[in-house]
């Protein structure tokens, strides 16, 4: 099966120089190990040829300088040998991007309908499986709405970058939906949410304080991700996406293991990534707080049976509020005023600490990293021949070090500003969280939290009134709501 690279094995001996070799037997034996079957993508020879010619022509047009430099021609062959063309397997067709967008918008609409109108958990599960297969395993988690916010941020701050249409729509459509009807995207369109929702086997409640404390992290991640993207340094959100490597079924060991840990934890704790890390979830959470329509567990009145509260694996069901005594109320008011006063201090304070981060954070930017590298090696001139990536990089820096360093310095100044922004943002989030934990809300029913509810439709199946509506339970069965007695 495998051929030893040995000339003698083929009976070829000396005087290679005089006597032509027989064409070496094709060494295709390893094709048995070919990893990514090409799926028979070769269309037709003609198509490929045309494409080749087209690519060559167009690049010749673009790359050839005005002077018209010609390359040295190959020898003329007497044997009638024809030069083979360079194959160019095409990239994914442009049309497919519109298909993606259409499927995406369709799935969003369907998810909306399923949560708000049809109120079907079964439908949501089916759509989740579809989204997981399409956006997850087929599209390999890229492009996803979560990452697309970085493309938009980069386009906003870098006029040289054009944001692909797909990224723009993937980024904005779920936000618009969230503003109108809540997190339909999280419910069943996002492959990241879908995979976590589907692996949930045995939900465990986590204490409220932990839920709220960890709930700060997505906002930190969001702020950091956007600022690094806007400066063109790195797409952190993509780099530390735990599920994309799983969808691709290959990737760095670290990210694959982190993804596995998320899934294993997700068997017990509902959607750990969505709730405690996802930056896009943070954005949608804010948007859905002000949504026009919302998911309601009961289609009618609340029997206060608490079945829904128990059914929600994400701790997203709020219980009715307890009327407070005047003493308590005035205490709460005072606390609220204090927190309102504290928030600007938090913004400035954490902002200041954030600006300290500018130095290390700037290192993620390629220009700064190169300048740093150059400054570090300033005393030692590059060795020749430069072979190592580091030395080759240094050679690139050596072309115009002054410009490089001054660009890097400018970038570092940007990062100082960004450090303030990031810290300020975190301060703001902490302040807002504290305030929201001190606000008194008047609620008479058990109802899903506007921000936290991802619309998974689990609670519907538990609500007695919903069962009545669907005719699964006799109408007389649910008792009128028991008076809440203290």
């Amino acid at each position: 099966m495998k051929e030893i690279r040995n000339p003698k094995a083929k009976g070829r001996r000396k005087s290679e120089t005089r006597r032509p070799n027989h064409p070496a037997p094709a060494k295709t034996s390893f094709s048995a190990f070919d990893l990514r079957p090409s799926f028979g993508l070769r269309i037709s020879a003609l198509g490929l040829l045309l494409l080749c010619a087209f690519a060559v022509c167009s690049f010749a047009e673009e790359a050839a300088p005005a002077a018209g430099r010609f390359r040295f021609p190959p020898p003329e062959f007497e044997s009638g040998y024809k030069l083979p063309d360079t194959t160019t397997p095409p990239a994914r067709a442009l049309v497919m991007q519109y298909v993606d967008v259409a499927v995406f918008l369709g799935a969003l609409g369907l998810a909306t309908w399923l949560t708000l109108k049809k109120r079907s958990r079964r439908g949501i599960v089916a759509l989740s499986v579809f989204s997981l297969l399409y956006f997850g395993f087929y599209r390999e988690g890229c492009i996803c709405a979560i990452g697309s916010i970085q493309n938009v941020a980069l386009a906003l701050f870098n006029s040289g970058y054009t944001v692909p249409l797909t990224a723009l729509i993937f980024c904005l459509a779920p936000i618009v939906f969230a503003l109108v009807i809540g997190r339909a995207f999280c419910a069943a369109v996002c492959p990241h949410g879908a995979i976590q929702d589907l692996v949930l086997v045995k939900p465990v409640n986590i204490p409220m304080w932990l839920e709220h404390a960890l709930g700060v992290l997505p906002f930190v991640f969001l702020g950091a991700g956007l600022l690094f993207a806007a400066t063109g340094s790195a797409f952190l959100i993509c780099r530390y996406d735990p599920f994309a490597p799983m969808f691709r079924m290959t990737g760095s060991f670290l990210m694959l293991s982190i993804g596995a840990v998320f899934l294993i934890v997700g068997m017990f704790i509902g959607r750990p990534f969505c709730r405690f890390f996802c930056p896009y979830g943070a954005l949608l959470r804010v948007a859905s707080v002000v949504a026009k329509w919302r998911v309601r567990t009961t289609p009618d009145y609340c029997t206060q049976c608490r079945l829904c509260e128990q059914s929600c694996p994400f701790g997203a069901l709020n219980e009715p509020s307890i009327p407070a005594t005047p003493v308590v109320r005035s205490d709460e008011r005072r606390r609220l005023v204090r927190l309102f006063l504290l928030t600007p201090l938090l913004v400035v304070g954490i902002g200041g600490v954030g600006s300290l981060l500018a130095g290390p954070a700037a290192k993620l930017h390629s220009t700064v990293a190169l300048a740093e590298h150059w400054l570090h090696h300033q005393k030692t001139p590059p060795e020749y021949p430069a072979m190592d990536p580091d030395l080759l990089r240094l050679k690139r820096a050596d072309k115009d070090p002054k410009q490089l360093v001054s660009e890097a310095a400018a970038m570092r100044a940007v990062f100082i500003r960004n450090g303030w922004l990031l810290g300020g943002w975190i301060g703001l989030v902490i302040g807002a969280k504290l305030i929201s934990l001190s606000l008194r809300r008047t609620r008479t029913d058990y109802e899903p939290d506007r921000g936290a509810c991802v619309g998974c439709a689990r609670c519907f199946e538990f609500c007695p009134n919903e069962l009545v509506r669907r005719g699964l339970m006799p109408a007389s069965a649910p008792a009128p709501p028991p008076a809440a007695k203290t």
Partner: protein
Amino acid sequence: MDTNPQPNPPKPPVSRRQFMRDGARATMLVGVGGLVGLLAGRHASNGFVWQIDPAKCVRCGLCATSCVLEQSAVKCVHTHAICGYCRLCTAYFVPEPNALSTAAENQLCPTGAIKRSFIEDPYYEYTIDEKLCIGCAKCVEGCNRFGNGSLYLQVRHDRCLNCNECSIAKVCAGDAFRRVPVDHPYMLKSTTSH
């Protein structure tokens, strides 16, 4: 539901909270609208894919190890039109070959992905078996150092996942990766370009 003994409580007039919510929603919608307006000029209906500019590639070898794919999406390609068809191909043979034969000790490619076949005296053709190529650029270095540079690296789009952030581009020593339009996804060398 008609049998519900308790009538629904009458809807309260728009509360302060509701008003704030409507206001915030309107603001955010306007914000999103503004964002669309701002980016309308900056979006590209055309998609983009990653590609290596062969003029900037410095053959640092990181393409082979930095791709998210286990076997890199970057492969060596060959523009035969600028190949010298050398008998002693420095992309095929190690710098100091023992003999000009196809024996393992003479071959440069770690995976044996280059095929050498005789055409006519004194010319030999070299082709890349992409299934075996790992994109290590050893041959590219050999060809550029001594020869015409007809071998060079390209991102192969039948393999590339087109990640939002290319992990090779992040480490590329020559800063050679760039986004190119989907309908011109390759930067091939040709007889007229350089």
